[in-house]
């Protein structure tokens, strides 16, 4: 039963991640990323980390992917915006190189796993799944990283606001700087 669920969601994750990478339209890529993230969240739950799975669905699909969709629709990208010179030959060459690298990397991982092996799996105890113990560890042992991450998010919010803001433009006659009102394309 567990094996069946794993196989279903692993196949879903792999297939939808291929769609993420291969689809021309960024909106379809993003929606397919939702499926990938959801499948990985199910795998998190199967690995005894239900809270991480919930966070994955909430933060990734709830916040980050929605942000992506906002930006895609804001920029109004057309699906076929690929008029550069490399053409079909360059594209397939890139694909071949990427696939070759992928196969080499997979071989490396399989070799490393096969050579050294893995330690025996610990039994899943209630302590591992317990949200109370998890949060206690987060707020005692990992308190400083937690605060630093909070600071990082604050800096990122301020930075994103400053970068994405419409730049103020100087009036050519007076040199007076004021923000433009919606004449931007």
């Amino acid at each position: 039963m567990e094996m069946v669920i794993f196989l279903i969601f692993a196949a879903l994750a792999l297939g939808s991640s291929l769609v993420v990478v291969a689809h021309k339209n960024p909106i379809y890529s993003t929606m397919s990323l939702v499926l990938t993230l959801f499948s990985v969240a199910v795998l998190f739950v199967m690995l005894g980390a239900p809270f991480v799975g919930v966070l994955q669905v909430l933060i990734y699909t709830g916040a980050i992917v929605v942000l992506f969709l906002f930006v895609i629709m804001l920029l109004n990208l057309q699906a076929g915006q690929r008029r550069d010179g490399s053409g079909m030959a360059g594209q397939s060459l890139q694909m071949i190189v990427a696939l070759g690298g992928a196969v080499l990397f997979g071989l490396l991982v399989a070799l490393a796993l096969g050579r050294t092996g893995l330690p025996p799996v610990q039994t899943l105890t209630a302590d591992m799944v317990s949200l109370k113990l998890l949060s206690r560890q987060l707020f005692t042992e990992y308190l400083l990283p937690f605060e630093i991450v909070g600071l990082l998010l604050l800096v990122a919010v301020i930075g994103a606001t400053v970068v994405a803001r419409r730049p103020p433009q100087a009036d050519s006659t007076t040199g007076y700087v004021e923000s433009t009102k919606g004449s931007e394309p």
Partner: protein
Amino acid sequence: MTVPIHWYLLLAAALFVIGAAGALTRRNGISIFLSIELMLNAANLTLVAYSRLLGVRTGQLVVFFVLAVAAAEAAVGLALFIAVFRQRHTIDVNRINLMRW
């Protein structure tokens, strides 16, 4: 029948490779970002799998921090793309070569 842990690790490696291939071959900036998110998620899967394997919670805690950093990265990166799009009217990374020379 329980699933052996190294299947999760191999799946994570496969997801990472797919993400890396996408990040290297796509030219749309948004698609590159999506591929990077895919790679981050594969790393998260590895962390949780090892956390389960070794019977410690540290891997799950590191995943929180990875999630937060991914959120910050997405916010700043998308803001950069908005700013670039305003200047250049494209986010094709082959045509954004402001800092190449």
